[in-house]
């Protein structure tokens, strides 16, 4: 039976299928019982080649790719590395968030599509400054609107900067606004400074008064007092506690205690008794009133003489203010929406979510599918809406750059966030039309938590810095990057001292000198990272050469940022991208309480140099002082610079209006898709 059906099948395979053939088979009495088998054989013999053919042809007549469809719809598909922590522009600090926010909001000045140095009008049509560049007047567009149609006025900007600087919001990026007059005092909640120092009628000048202990003295050990009630302390303990906290941080009860027993607090001799009493009285009045917002009293350098004029007064000349104002921290936030969803100072409320978020940029938030994409669509109320080239942008949080590269090559993205350096050579060979390698103002570095035992010793930190072989890393791992000579990358005329070099022997000697020969005696450290990549392995191997073992701790982007801000890490892989074209965008980070410092390190000397530079009118002299400050910073080495970034990414040629920019802030409104220009 079996041999019979097989030749039939073979025969049918060659010829065409005729119903009578099977009919003939049925006439054979032997085949009767086997009809099903014959049919099956027939079907298989015909379907297999057809299936094979279909399989072969399928890739040929390809389905339209995502990019093809997006080209038709005018939607740009952007690889954006990580799921944003939030879309509240006053809270977030990362590049992935910034990319989205710059589509949703616009600052006073806009980005030029092809030149980082040039400013274009944004919310302000034009602006002027006084002679010494300490007072800037921005003339806002009368037609400016929020994306819900509400008018946007100078008051909105003042509200935004008020919120950004509000001490209770604790915005990590608030120091970007510290150059506004009195902004730093307000942001750091320096009550004494605001209540007494800013009062011209106060009997003692602030220059003298500030010598009193307002900020607290962290060098005094008071850990034993941490959890005890003030009332239960004896005289000596009270004195110690008050000195540790400082006048600005005392509550009403403690201030009352000083009022009643002045000996509890030490004052410098030059402050007269009357002033002392007055300081305490004012602080007490403030504390008893429930510590109300000091915004009015702080008299920040922000003024709106009319709804369309914003006057910003600065504490020092800032020639690059328009450049700085392009950063997301200077963007306005919608007062009417924020206050609808909570208090001004509430973090992570629902105002910055789909359906609620109102912006003033070329696009508005359309969809946020967690871990999938964020989509923004045209904002019809944007002042320049008719000239916006795209209908929308979709940001994909693809963390793995290899996956991102594959997505791009499969036609799912127009532009990627980064190309893994080890694919550089292959891409250069096979896809030169997509490859972009551009200069980028940024530094890859290793952040140290200098409050950890071991890492609090500058000798240990310097030993670690000496052990990093930057040339080798840039040649084989961070391909296309430049070995970092210091923290701040090359920027205009700024010439910082090139201090970093590789010297393993010296590193070992230094470590031994610090009391940890071959790393013995050092606690074990964890290396915090948001992504396991070759850099992590390389740093681990580098530290191993000194006998220091690192375990690896991987966290998602949001938790990785949060862990650093709370100083809950030992050592972290980090990067910093410049926000504007001035070295201060790298140096200001390391001031005390800067939300992006996150090393636990600060130095009054370093900050004095920064202040001195800020007051220096001569540009070159100013840069020289900044270079000195950088030298101080590099002496202490709270971070280990590794490499200066290059921007390596893949980019489709149909994207127009996208030019190399060292800050990489491509104004989305100028980008357009021209698929026809490619074919």
């Amino acid at each position, binding site marked *: 039976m079996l041999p019979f059906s097989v030749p039939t099948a073979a025969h049918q395979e060659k010829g065409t299928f005729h119903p009578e053939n099977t009919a003939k088979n049925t006439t054979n009495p032997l085949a009767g019982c086997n009809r099903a088998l014959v049919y099956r054989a027939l079907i298989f013999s015909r379907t297999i080649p057809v299936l094979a053919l279909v399989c072969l042809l399928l890739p040929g007549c390809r389905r339209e790719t995502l990019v093809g469809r997006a080209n038709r719809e005018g939607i740009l598909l952007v690889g954006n590395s990580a799921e944003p922590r939030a879309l509240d522009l006053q809270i977030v600090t990362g590049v992935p968030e910034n990319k989205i926010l710059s589509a949703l909001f616009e600052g006073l000045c806009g980005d030029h599509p092809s030149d980082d140095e040039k400013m274009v009008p944004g919310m302000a049509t034009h602006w002027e400054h006084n002679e010494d560049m300490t007072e800037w007047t921005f003339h806002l567009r009368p037609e400016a609107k929020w994306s819900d149609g509400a008018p946007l006025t100078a008051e909105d900007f003042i509200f935004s900067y008020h919120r950004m600087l509000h001490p209770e919001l604790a915005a990590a990026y608030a120091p970007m606004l510290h150059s506004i007059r009195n902004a730093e005092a307000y942001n750091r909640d320096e009550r004494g400074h605001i209540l007494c120092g800013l009062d011209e009628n106060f009997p003692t000048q602030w220059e003298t008064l500030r010598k009193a202990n307002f900020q607290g003295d962290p060098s005094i050990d008071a850990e034993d007092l941490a959890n005890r009630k003030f009332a239960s302390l004896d005289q000596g303990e009270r004195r110690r506690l008050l000195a540790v906290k400082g006048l600005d941080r005392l509550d009403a009860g403690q201030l009352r205690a000083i009022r009643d027993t002045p000996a509890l607090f030490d004052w410098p001799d030059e402050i007269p008794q009357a002033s002392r009493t007055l300081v305490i009285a004012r602080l007490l009045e403030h504390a008893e009133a429930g510590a109300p917002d000091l915004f009015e009293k702080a008299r920040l350098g922000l003024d709106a003489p009319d709804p369309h004029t914003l006057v910003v007064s600065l504490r020092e000349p800032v020639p690059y203010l328009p450049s700085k104002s392009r950063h997301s921290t200077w963007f306005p936030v919608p007062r009417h929406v924020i206050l609808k969803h909570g208090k001004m100072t509430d973090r992570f409320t629902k105002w910055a979510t789909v359906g609620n978020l109102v912006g003033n940029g070329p696009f508005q938030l359309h969809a946020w599918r967690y871990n999938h994409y964020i989509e923004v669509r045209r904002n019809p109320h944007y002042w320049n809406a008719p000239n916006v080239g795209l209908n929308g942008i979709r940001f994909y949080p693809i963390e*793995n750059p*290899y*996956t991102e*590269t*594959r997505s791009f090559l499969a036609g799912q993205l127009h532009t990627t966030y980064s190309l*893994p350096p*080890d*694919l550089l*050579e*292959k891409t250069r060979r096979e896809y030169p039309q997509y490859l972009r390698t551009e200069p980028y103002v940024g530094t890859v570095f290793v952040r140290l938590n200098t409050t950890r035992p071991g890492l609090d010793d500058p000798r240990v930190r310097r030993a670690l810095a000496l052990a990093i072989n930057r040339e*080798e*890393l840039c*040649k*084989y*791992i961070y391909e296309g990057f430049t070995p970092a000579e210091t923290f701040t990358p090359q920027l205009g005329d700024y010439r910082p001292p090139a201090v970093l070099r590789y010297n393993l022997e010296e590193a070992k000697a230094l470590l031994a000198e610090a009391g940890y020969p071959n790393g013995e005696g050092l606690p*074990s450290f964890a290396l915090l990272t948001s992504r*396991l990549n*070759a850099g*992590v*392995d*390389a740093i*681990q*191997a580098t530290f*191993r050469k000194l006998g220091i*073992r690192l*375990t*690896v*701790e*991987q*966290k998602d982007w949001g938790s990785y940022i949060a862990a650093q801000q709370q100083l809950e890490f030992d050592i972290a892989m980090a990067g910093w991208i410049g926000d504007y074209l001035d070295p201060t965008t790298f140096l200001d980070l390391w001031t005390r309480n800067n939300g992006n410092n996150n090393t636990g390190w600060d130095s009054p000397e370093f900050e004095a140099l920064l202040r001195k530079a800020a007051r220096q009118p001569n540009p070159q002299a100013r840069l020289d002082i900044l270079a000195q400050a950088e030298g101080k910073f590099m002496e202490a080495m709270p971070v280990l610079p590794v490499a200066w970034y290059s921007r390596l990414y893949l980019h489709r040629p149909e994207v127009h209006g996208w030019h190399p920019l060292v800050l990489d802030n491509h104004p989305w409104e100028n980008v357009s898709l021209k698929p026809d220009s490619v074919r």
Partner: protein
Amino acid sequence: MQAETVTDTLVETDDGHSLWSDAWQRLRHNRAAMCGLAFLGSIIALCFVVPFFPFLPDPAIQDLPNKNSMPTAAHWMGTDHLGRDLFSRILHGGRISILIGLITTMVSLTIGVTVGAIAGYVGGRLDALLMRVVDILYSLPFLIIVILFSALAKGYTQDFTVWVTEITGWKHDTIAPFTGLIPLFVAIGALSWLNISRIVRASVQDISQREYVEAARSLGLPHRRILLRHIIPNSIGPIVVYATLTIPGVMLFEATLSFLGLGVQPPYSSWGILIKDGADRMLSNPSLLIFPSIFFILTLLSLNFLGDGLRDALDPKSAKD
């Protein structure tokens, strides 16, 4: 004389008929299973013995100028993206993968067979109770429980590692990759026994109705002996098959956990990690994906062959013919 010879032969035949020797006889004739066994044996020997030979490079030593090299005399399978010897990394990673596979499967088998056999044999309220416990554990998200457990145990593991180094005087590097895995062993093992307990319970319920169990009972054998002697050996087929499926599953699961930062930490690796890294870099250096995958696939295949053979050998009734 004649009588004596007869008894001798009788005794001899009686001797050679235990369950395990019968099974071994049958297994020996299953060529695929024997190949699998031989391969498994050699891979285990390779992974656990060869790394102690000095000619194999240290898997953590980076030789950046020599990265992504093709196989050479010094590096038999080439080097990875950091210039580390791939062969050495595969063997070192294999130790961890195989250990995880075997130990966690052991843990899950021990718990699962015990619970399943008791539930199936005793029945009634105890059965209902045990099976509801299993139901509840089923409803818990496996991954989250393992992550929670490993995260909680992390601090203790480090202390334990230090303690072991002090006690034994071994080098930290030798021990750290293994002690770091203890929470993983326990966590996966303690949660992956649910399926096996159900399978064993069903099979025990079936077998305890059989005549030979009735016979054993009527002979007055204690329950423990009935269970260990008659019921469990007769339900060994599904257990062995399930175990051979669990081992590769656990090896893959370890890769997931390592990716989340809970399993093996760099610079140590396992096959799962090597394959994940290799998949990332398959465009630039495909050998990073191919070589570890070959080891992984062959191990899994031989485990499956061996499992099939064991089932046939231990339970001739279920054989295909």
